[in-house]
């Protein structure tokens, strides 16, 4: 512990758990939602999804076909 004084200053446990609750968890959850949407619109190979999003995928330069 004594070898990491800088880290210790910023990361005492109440502050760390607050950062986790206030920033890290909301950001992770929002990020995962975003990835899910991007996967469905940009990558999913289901024919219907592909055909519906076809022009959007070509326009965004996602690998298509």
């Amino acid at each position: 512990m004594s070898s990491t004084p800088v880290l210790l200053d910023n990361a005492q446990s109440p502050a760390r758990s607050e950062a986790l609750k206030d920033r890290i968890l909301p950001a992770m959850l929002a990020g995962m939602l975003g990835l899910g949407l991007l996967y469905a619109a940009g990558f999913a190979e289901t024919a219907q999804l592909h055909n519906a999003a076809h022009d959007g995928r070509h326009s965004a330069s996602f690998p298509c076909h």
Partner: protein
Amino acid sequence: MFNLTTFRELVIAALWTGLLAGLLLTAVQQIQVIPTLLKAEVYEEAAVVPSTENSHEHHEWQPENGWERTFFTAVANISLGVGFALLIGAVMCLRGRPGNWRMGLLWGLAGYLTFFVAPSLGLPPEVPGTEAARLADRQSWWLITVLDTGFGLSLLAFAKTRTNQFFGIVLLAAPHLISAPQPEVHSSAAPAELAQSFITATVFANAVFWLAIGGLMGQFYKKEL
């Protein structure tokens, strides 16, 4: 459990941003992106029809040309917009929210470089009917390039030591040194001018899209005063 207010603010900002940026992109695409795609499809169909009499490709549902197709493209654009806005919002939430829309534009620029410019250097936007390498290989290269560029840019912008910033530059260059998967033979049903016109059109349309995403997220998700 976790701060629901922060999460809700982020999601609402991303929904509005994605909706507006997606609609704006749909409008911008009508100038050159969609007309070029439709022209290329004529060449693609002309190239396909004589060789396959009982084509199975057209059994799957696809939107009718015209309003239906534009509607689904708008839905896809809005989904991409909300997805990108959620990712950018997640990073803003971790790094500190922007103060205004001008700060947001910088995030939009970073997103444009990461998600469009870097992968397009190796795999340029293509019109339908272009020969390309195996889809899975191209998707892997695309994903690696995006992750690598995002990480490289953040090191370049935020790293405190010269060594780490240099490492950022190495990361930015790496995917282009290991070149993108290419088909054995390059060929395209559409003429080269059409392919070139499509690249120009997407470079412009995606720049507008990303600056809108960044600027709107900067405005809707700014720091409380």
